[in-house]
């Protein structure tokens, strides 16, 4: 199995598909600490990375794991870690450091019952806002939500490409359900996999050229060992990358540029899956919840009820304009999340009262919405 890309048809668990996606995307360093329901990713990476010339590091904890992938990334290596909510909580300080130092990396969160230790084997969509605002300070982040084993493969590749292009940590927000579920995964030929590489500066740059060390179009990354000496700091730094912590102008400059490099490129980053046609009612979902929506729509169609579907593949940056447009086309929006309402707040803000927004959690938190429960709700509001 020393192939870098396991081209072909597989019956594969989501976690394993994620690991294979990482290998196919060129990830050659993984640091992690085992945690249910993400352990299978670490396990697979521990087996696969040595086969493809990469390195697997079993760390002492999640703080160390996040620190290690940041270090690896600064050598120019594509790096990833995978954990669940309790691990993310421990990683958040260093995730903030990765954001401030503009370090490309992929952080997989296979969400489980929470808060705290919660329920290791139960599924949940509890960490959606944590991905957006978990670390302190003002920043933008990128997060993707897979809804099948296939997307665990595809979106892991996409996460690496976005991380490399925008020099930022990218979250893959899976859950226990999708992580442990097995289904068909078709791995394409290596030549069909698009790999985006980070921009590197030339070995020698004049001071003026290096002035772009903060740039809304993403500065080239002066990785270690390539002859270019640079200063990497989580403290506020100016346009030369020089530490400057007493100056409000420097703070203003850094924070705005870190945010802008993502918000300015939102159109390129955001991906949604929209099937509206002539429906007045639309179901908004993401991740595993989308699977229940698909079944419910099929059942409704049999009753000649046509409801639309709008799925967020990119959760962050939030597809505000897309939701704003959607609200103008429909009368009612039912938001399905497997939590008590996280993304719905952002949806309401984007809808601006143009349509009625109804929130629908599953009957029992953590379980997938039952399709007939969704059908009943649609019939009730229609």
């Amino acid at each position, binding site marked *: 199995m020393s192939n870098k890309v396991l081209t072909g*048809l*597989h*019956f594969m668990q989501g976690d394993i598909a994620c690991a294979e996606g990482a290998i196919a995307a060129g990830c050659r360093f993984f640091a992690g600490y085992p945690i249910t329901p993400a352990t299978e990713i670490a396990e697979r990476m521990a087996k696969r990375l040595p086969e493809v010339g990469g390195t697997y590091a079993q760390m002492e904890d999640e703080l160390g794991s996040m620190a290690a992938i940041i270090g690896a990334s600064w050598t120019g290596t594509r790096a990833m870690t995978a954990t669940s909510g309790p691990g993310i909580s421990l990683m958040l300080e260093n995730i903030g450091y990765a954001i401030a130092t503009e370090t490309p990396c992929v952080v997989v969160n296979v969400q489980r019952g929470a808060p705290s230790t919660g329920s*290791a*084997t139960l599924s949940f969509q509890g960490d959606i806002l944590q991905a957006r605002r978990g670390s302190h300070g003002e920043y933008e982040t990128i997060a993707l939500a897979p809804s099948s084993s296939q997307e665990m493969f595809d979106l892991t590749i996409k996460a690496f490409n976005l991380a490399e292009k925008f020099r930022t940590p990218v979250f893959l927000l899976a859950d226990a*359900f999708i992580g*442990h*579920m*097995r*289904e*068909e995964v078709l791995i394409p030929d290596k030549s069909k996999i698009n790999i985006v590489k980070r921009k590197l500066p030339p070995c020698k740059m004049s001071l003026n050229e290096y002035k772009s060390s903060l740039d809304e179009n993403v500065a080239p990354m002066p990785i270690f060992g390539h002859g270019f000496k640079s200063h990497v700091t989580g403290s506020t730094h100016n346009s030369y990358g020089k530490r400057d912590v007493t100056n409000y102008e420097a703070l203003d400059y850094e924070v705005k540029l870190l945010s802008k490099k993502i918000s300015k490129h939102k159109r390129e980053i955001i991906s949604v899956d929209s099937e509206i046609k002539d429906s007045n009612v639309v179901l908004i979902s993401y991740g595993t919840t989308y*699977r*229940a929506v*698909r*079944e419910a729509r*099929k059942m409704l169609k049999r009753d000649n009820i046509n409801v639309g579907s709008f799925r967020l593949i990119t959760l962050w940056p939030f597809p505000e304009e897309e939701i704003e447009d959607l609200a103008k086309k429909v009368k009612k929006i039912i938001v399905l999340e497997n939590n008590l309402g996280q993304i719905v707040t952002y949806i309401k803000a984007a809808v601006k009262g143009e349509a009625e927004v109804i929130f629908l959690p599953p009957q029992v938190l953590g379980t*997938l919405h*039952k*399709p007939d429960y969704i059908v009943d709700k649609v019939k009730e509001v229609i």
Partner: protein
Amino acid sequence: MKKEIRIAGFGGQGVVLSGVILGKAAVLYDRKRAIQTQSYGAEARGGGARSEIVISDEDIDYPKVINPDILVAMSQQALDKYVKDLKPKGILIVDSELVKDLPEDYIFSLYRVPASQIASNEFGRIIVANMIMLGFLVSLTEVVSLKALKNSVRESVPKGTEEMNIKAVERGRKIGEVVIK
């Protein structure tokens, strides 16, 4: 055609593996669609374990089993817990050694298979009871082809145990054939 199957028992019986084998048989060898999900306790052995498989000729949207067409109960606890979910006129297969207490009136088809007894007495390995069950299940219901099942078993079991597991599948199939006749 869409079939929902639930296999339940306790940890260590190979309940999860049985589901994986069926799913793999369907997807890789019969070129159907299949989804396998599972739930189990924190214990490696002894806790409740459940494996669910949806097999269909078309794309599968909803991956969970709500009302199975087929329930395989490998423990009394599993039967007691899940028999109420079985579809009316569904198929219930129990390990007759492990499930003694059966519902009094029912409208499903009931099959009592001495899988763990045969596994111990004829194979000297209780662990192959799940393979006997799979052989029986497939010969009775044809949810996957026997050829696909065997290919999938060969690919999924530990190296060196292939022949024993295939024999156990065959043994289960023979019981199934007798029942059908």
